[in-house]
């Protein structure tokens, strides 16, 4: 599928332009690629925040992020307004994951994100233009992704792994240690970067549990195999380390970007 050369027919609207300005003022000295990564990071942060405000669950938010990253893997960042794409991704992800979000809410929350403290939009042309943009952009995304919009997420692996690992540990030690919360937080944070579409779901899940257990220094019994080895047939320590290092880079990125 060819990328449309022009921007979206519908104007993204004033709030989006404002956001773009905010982005461009950040770092001119950076090279193109790092600037792009930072931009994506900010847009993903926007998706995360908006997702929380919309009451979206973790899986739809993860889907939205994957949709976003996959879309910009295929098209040039300059060709599309990333925040509009992000809004449409949220909308589409709600449909894909059966947690339907209304465009009105997406527009409202986004509008307030870009104009913090502002009054809600009136029911006027601006509102309807924004709504049209979101819906049309959703179609563009669908076509760019060849309508392949459902993905396997690490979330359910992670939760099953957590239950299995929990049985290995003394229950009091387990409840004293917030491994579940930490690994869930790490997994959500991992979607800030495009790396989430490069790793397999199980590896990501194992890496999250691994990092959480490691961080708290929880001791697991040693067998012929390590616990993480048996969870997935093809996982290696290198895979886990790769995921972890990608994730930790994102935390460094946060300090640089925001």
């Amino acid at each position, binding site marked *: 599928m060819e990328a449309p050369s022009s921007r979206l027919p519908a104007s993204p609207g004033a709030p989006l332009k404002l956001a773009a300005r905010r982005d461009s003022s950040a770092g001119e000295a950076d090279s193109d690629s790092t600037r792009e990564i930072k931009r994506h990071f900010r847009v993903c*942060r926007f998706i*995360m*925040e908006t997702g*929380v*405000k*919309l*009451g979206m*669950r*973790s899986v739809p938010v993860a889907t939205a992020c994957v949709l976003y990253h996959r879309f910009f893997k295929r098209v040039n960042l300059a060709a599309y307004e990333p925040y509009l794409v992000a809004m449409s991704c949220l909308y589409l992800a709600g449909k894909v994951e059966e947690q339907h979000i209304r465009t009105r*809410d*997406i527009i*409202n*929350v986004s509008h*307030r*994100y870009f104009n913090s403290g502002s009054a*809600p*939009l*009136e*029911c006027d042309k601006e509102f309807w233009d924004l709504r049209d943009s979101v819906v049309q952009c959703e179609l563009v995304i669908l076509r760019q992704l060849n309508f392949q919009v459902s993905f396997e997420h690490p*979330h*359910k692996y992670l*939760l*099953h792994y*957590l*239950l*299995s690992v929990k*049985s*290995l540990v*003394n*229950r009091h030690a387990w*409840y*004293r*240690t917030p491994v*579940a*919360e*930490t690994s*869930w*937080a790490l997994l*959500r*944070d991992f979607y800030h970067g495009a790396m989430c579409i490069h790793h397999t779901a199980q590896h990501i899940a194992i890496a999250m549990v691994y*990092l959480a257990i*490691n*961080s*708290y*220094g*929880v001791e697991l*019994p040693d*067998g*012929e195999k*390590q*616990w993480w*080895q*048996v*969870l*997935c*047939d093809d996982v290696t320590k290198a895979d886990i380390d790769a995921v*972890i290092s990608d994730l*930790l880079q994102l*935390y460094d990125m*946060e300090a640089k970007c925001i």
Partner: protein
Amino acid sequence: MDRDLLRQSLLYHGESLFNTLKCEQTENPDFQAVLPDLCKVTSERGEEQGSPLVEQFIARKADILFSPAWKTATLQREEHDEEEEEAAEPYAIMPPLEIFMEVSYQERRSVMYRDLERGDVVVGRINNIREYGFFLTLLCMAGGLKRDIEDLDLSALCHVKEIPSTGSHDDPLSYYQIGDFIRAGVKDIDRYQEKITVSLLQSCLSPGLDHIKLGVLTKEELPIHYSRGTRASNDSSQTYERILRTCHGYHNPCVVDYLLEKVQISDIHPPSMMRGLQSKLFKEEDFASSIRKKQSASWALKCVRAGVDHFKHGRHVEAMNEYNKALEIDTNNVEALVARGALYANKGSLLKAITNFEQALESCPDHRNAKKYLCQTLVERGKQLEEQEKLVTAEGLYRRALSLDDSNPEAQDALHKITDTIQKSIRLREEALAKEQTKPKGGQTSADKLRKILKEEKRMKKKRKRSTSSLSSSSESSRNSSASSSSSSSRRKSKKKKKKHRRSERRSKRRSRISSRDSRRSEEGKNEKDGRREKEEDEEEEVEWYPAPPNTSATFLNQKGGPGFRVDEEVEAKESDERRICHLYSLSAASDNGDSDSSRRERKRRAKTRKSSQSRSPEKESRLSRSKERRDKNRQRGKEESRRNSDSKRRSSLDENRKRKVSCSSADSEFSRKSGFQSEYPGNGSSASKHLEKRERHESSKRNSFDDGRYKTEDADREKESSKRRVEEEGSRSAGRIRKTSQNSAGNGDGPGESAKKELPPHLLNIFNQIAQFEKEKGAGPKK
């Protein structure tokens, strides 16, 4: 900072983490507080080197990772219903990881003894039965931990005391055989001597697990994770991943939500290690729901404003559409509800209005307008109900109105009046009952009545003589001949009348009494009373009269009166819109009880008409014309008055009605009881006549709301006016016979009315006669 957690982490990571921590968390006062404690621990395990990146991460995020608030899960003896979970399998139930990890026997055994707790559920096979109990070889865990223990040779004793006895006659052990699968609760663990005792009593289970039934199991009932575990250990191709993928629970679309709840993680306020995504940074007003709420309110308000604008310009349908649109946008928009309620109230849909105001007050209990309007509407509705004689309900509404606004004068008045009325009507009912019991026999009274009638008649003759003589003398002295001619004609007519009169009187003497009494009462306010009449009336008052027997002329009369009222009603309806609304109400809910009042009042009204016309009729021409002038003026004034007062009148009408009813019934209580509930009701079966009467009653009550004489005359004039029209209508429409008679009488007597008809037959024919005559007289007045 959670000191224990931090210590655990430092123990694991060693010196290097401690150093990084000290660098990264220098500004964190929490960390500085725990620092002295941590110094002792770190040095013990320096040899294990982790990734410096991970350590840096831990150090940087230490304030989040080790914050006490970070941990959301609490130690609860979780376990949803284990059996239910196994049956439905909302998530993949996996065999213990140790099976795949191949952990050494020794380690598993020691860890098992460490982690097994009292109250856990185990499953074992009986390997030995003694007189003091049986021994189990433990196979697996069934609640609490999920561990692979089959090959650990763990043995547990179940003492005979711990076996629930099923009957008194048997040894409980006789139920159990070697090889039986037994589910049992752990009663005690001796970790040093490695001895486990179990129990089959439910009480030994920990609180979260006590729903699990203990006792013998079949092979099929063994826990799923155990059977999967044995399969996995026998078949090396069964990896964890493969088993996971074949589980039903793994494919459950809701598995993530289910497990999140199980591990106690909130997905609405999800945790994050990112500093910008800490849940404390999210403000409530930025959330979609609150923005939407605000937005809906503002959009709805816009619609309400448009609606109010429509309303002000009289476009009620458009206004209603706007209000409905507003409520569609924002279901409980207070302003829209109040506005719509006001519109409903305006349109007369009081019940809908009340509902709307109530809804508004529900979401905003202090809304001033909603309160005010609701109060007003309740009073209005109460009056409607009062009109329908639903006094208790109406009283309740007034009380509610007062509970909203205890200073509302209207509600206070209405409440006072209605409580009075209720008390009075109760008293009257009692009196009526008492009187009914002591009612004298009919035979004895008829003779009396006859005698009285004769007496009256005599007196009347005398009176007539006197009045005509006085009239003629006065006319001779001061007036011209026209007056005398009229008086003579009237005499002629009155003679004729008298005969008819007598006949009709016999038919309904009772009625005549009532009407004359009523007419007297209506006269009372007038200044034109003369002593003679008064005396006569006093005499009349002494006359006893009796309740109407059912199905007498009274019912008949009412039916005939029907068409006449309609004209009246139309005239009235033109006068004010609001009264029409009132009428609609009475249409929709005509109550049976109202008939007695209305019909009686109707009669009374007619009598009054007659009286007023008569009272003036014998007068001289000049006075006639003068009075006519005045009458016209008065009529105008009255109309104005009525228009001006229409609102208040409508309100007060009921009260007046009430008052009047009371006063009437105190005078002729028996009549009201009897005729109201027995004789008249059956006659007025059709709702049309009912509501017409209602209308009539309303009208008459309105008329009575004026207390002083001037208003009385005005009313009488207006009444004449309307009755004139009625006669016209009547003549053309239905009562041809009546018309004829009225014409006849009019043709016979072309002068002013006669005093002869003062007490007169109440019968409709006579009434019409009177009216026609009066008309004649009026028509004749200005000509001469």
